[in-house]
């Protein structure tokens, strides 16, 4: 029968055609573009409009960015070099780089100290942030505040050492007494630590050498982004435990503790941060005689910590309230006491729920540290608005400086936010 075919059909393909490429309109970038950018007429119009807007933005920004001047002694010199062309005057960042980072009074030969403290910060926070790391590394975290204090402020090493001894003694007394009752351990530990601090007040001046290994730098000389970082890190890490304590206190069945916590939280939340800062810098100056003032940095840290701990307390209270009552009852039915139930059952769940809220507060707090510029502390924004813009050389440079500040803050805040997202994924146990 093949003959019939041989006459009626001239050619029979015996092998399959190799698969042809899809038509141009159905593949690659065309397909993607047609489906995503030009699917319908309104879509196409919006795409064209968006491309035009992007073009406008880039046409304005790119020449400014790429044509920028990085080496000039002043704004006038910058403009002479540019000679009418568009271009940023980034030379101000080069000229005042150290001032932006460290403030204008930190001794320049000592810049390595805050830099080292900054590097060590990552070593110290790593075991807290990433709990896959060996738990023994937490010792580094506990030592870090004392090392960082010594590096940044300098002076005699005995102040941080004595502070460390005080905390050590307090903890030791706590472990001794806590078997009898938690209250005895808690207050006994605090009393022991205070006693050590009090004694250290007499011992340290005797031990302090005339020329300490690291020359002392007063708080007033701190500034720049370093100050923002110091305030942010200190206040966030202090306000988290205080906030947890306040949140638990607010739920306490003991009226006194409950009232104290509620009044504290409601009072602090009802007051703007800036008024608290003014109280710290202005009002407290009246309460202390001029020579025995509490350090301004410490006053500001106390105020910001109070502020953010009140907010964190409310976020954590939200987490606690979100837990079903059965979780509390489960703790009770297992025979756990209050501290154990909180530590093992309630808080791990409540804190997990609260992560986005806590991170929100932490990011907000970090940015709020720029408010200290209104009480004449020279943080990054204070440096820009004050000394740098007020110098005859650089008066009039706004975009470059404030853009740089925004970039620094963005890097840190975006980092915090990314970490929190990772943490949420890591802790996701609900198999959704």
């Amino acid at each position: 029968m093949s003959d019939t075919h041989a006459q009626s059909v001239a050619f029979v393909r015996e092998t399959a055609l190799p698969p042809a490429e899809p038509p141009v309109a159905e593949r690659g970038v065309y397909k993607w573009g047609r489906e995503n950018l030009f699917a319908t007429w309104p879509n196409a119009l919006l795409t064209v409009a968006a491309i035009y807007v992007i073009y406008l933005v880039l046409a304005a920004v790119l020449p400014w960015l790429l044509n920028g001047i990085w080496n000039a002694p002043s704004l006038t010199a910058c403009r002479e070099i540019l000679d009418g062309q568009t271009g940023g005057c980034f030379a101000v960042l080069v000229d005042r780089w150290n001032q932006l980072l460290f403030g204008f009074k930190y001794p320049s030969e000592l810049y390595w100290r805050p830099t080292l403290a900054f590097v060590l910060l990552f070593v110290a926070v790593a075991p807290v942030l990433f709990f896959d790391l060996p738990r023994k590394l937490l010792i580094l975290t506990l030592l870090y505040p004392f090392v960082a204090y010594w590096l940044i402020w300098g002076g005699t090493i005995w102040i941080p050492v004595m502070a460390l001894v005080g905390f050590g003694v307090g903890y030791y007394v706590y472990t001794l007494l806590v078997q009898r009752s938690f209250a005895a351990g808690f207050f006994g530990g605090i009393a022991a630590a205070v006693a050590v601090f009090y004694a250290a007040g007499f011992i340290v001046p005797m031990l302090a050498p005339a020329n300490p290994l690291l020359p002392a730098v007063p708080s007033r000389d701190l500034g720049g982004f370093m100050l923002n970082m110091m305030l942010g890190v200190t206040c966030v890490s202090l306000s988290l435990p205080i906030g947890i304590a306040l949140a638990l206190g607010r739920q306490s069945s003991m009226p006194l503790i409950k009232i104290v916590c509620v009044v504290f939280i409601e009072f602090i939340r009802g007051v703007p941060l800036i008024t608290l800062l003014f109280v710290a810098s202005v009002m407290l100056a009246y309460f202390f005689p001029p020579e025995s003032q509490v350090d301004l940095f410490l006053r500001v840290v106390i105020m910001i910590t109070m502020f953010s701990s009140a907010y964190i307390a409310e976020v954590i209270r939200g987490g606690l309230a979100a837990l079903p009552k059965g979780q509390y009852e489960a703790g009770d039915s297992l025979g756990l006491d209050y501290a154990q139930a909180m530590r093992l059952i309630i808080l791990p769940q409540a804190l997990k729920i609260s992560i986005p809220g806590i991170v929100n507060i932490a990011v907000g707090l970090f940015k709020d540290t720029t408010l200290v510029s209104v009480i004449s502390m020279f943080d990054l924004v204070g440096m820009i608005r004050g000394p740098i813009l007020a110098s005859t050389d650089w008066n009039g440079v706004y975009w470059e400086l404030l853009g740089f500040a925004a970039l620094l803050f963005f890097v840190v805040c975006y980092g915090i936010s990314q970490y929190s997202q990772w943490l949420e994924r890591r802790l996701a146990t609900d198999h959704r």
Partner: protein
Amino acid sequence: MAENQEEVKMKRTVFLGALTVAGVAAGAAAAATLDDVKARGKLNCGVTTGLVGFAAPDANGEWTGFDVSVCRAVAAAVLGDPAAVEFVPTTGKTRFTALASGEVDMLARNTTWTFSRDVDLKFDFVGVNYYDGQGFLVPKALGVSSAKDLDGAAVCIQTGTTTELNLADYFRKNNISYEPVPIETNAEGQQQYLAGACDAYTTDASGLAATRATFEAPGDHILLPEIISKEPLGPLVRHGDNEWGDVVRWTLNALIAAEELGVSSANVAEMSGNTNNPEVARLLGTEGELGAMLGLSADWAKNAIMAGGNYGEIFAKNIGEETPIGLARGLNAQWTDGGLLYTPPFR
């Protein structure tokens, strides 16, 4: 520049402070500041957090400027060392409490001498180191040559300052209208003005000159001739410590007198050796006991002049016509040149 609301706040703060810790505050205020400064070996001088030409730290962190020079002169007069100054930066909101609480010994922070500040806030202004006044900056293209032509103009104005009130007064007095564009800071004012959000920008004339100096094309903008307010800026000290007030007052006077008498940082050493002008001899301590009367060494004024030069030199170096700010002497010329600088005799 005089922030009005702040003063109200300030009064309340002072009242509260006085109420709660009257003893401490009074104790701090009544102490002999001159002895404190000598014992400390450093002068605590309150300055601004930064104002072009008047006070700002340079790239090395050294404070320079017109107000800063007054601090250095006082330090040189009292301690013999112009570098023995601890500069305490203050904002418009913290300056008065810093002085009242004893955190600083004196304030040299372009502060306008007003009745209520002198009397009600319990400070003593020891003199005037810069006679300022409120002016107008307009683009040349506007074609305006007098502030009276600004009828219907949009004017950028800092809120909560006396400049705002002066502006309202001036336009009402001349029966012309304007549209205020409220701004918060000088930086914002520059941007708004350059962006064309307002036809004219008004603040202290010295500030306008400094602002104009930062423009890409300063020549396209003019300062109108009208000065609509009096803003005498001067250093101030706490009320009640007259010895210290005298020291600051006469150090400032010495700088002004030195210019009048032709004593400059270049020739002060030579003139203190041989001069036949008895007033120069008294000023520089080769004759008479003026230094001892103040409780200072005989060469106090010589040290003050050597610190940064006489008034004219300080002016020329920081804000004068050779600098980018380019202020003319105007009212701040010696009385012999038609200005207002007039110091009582050194006798």
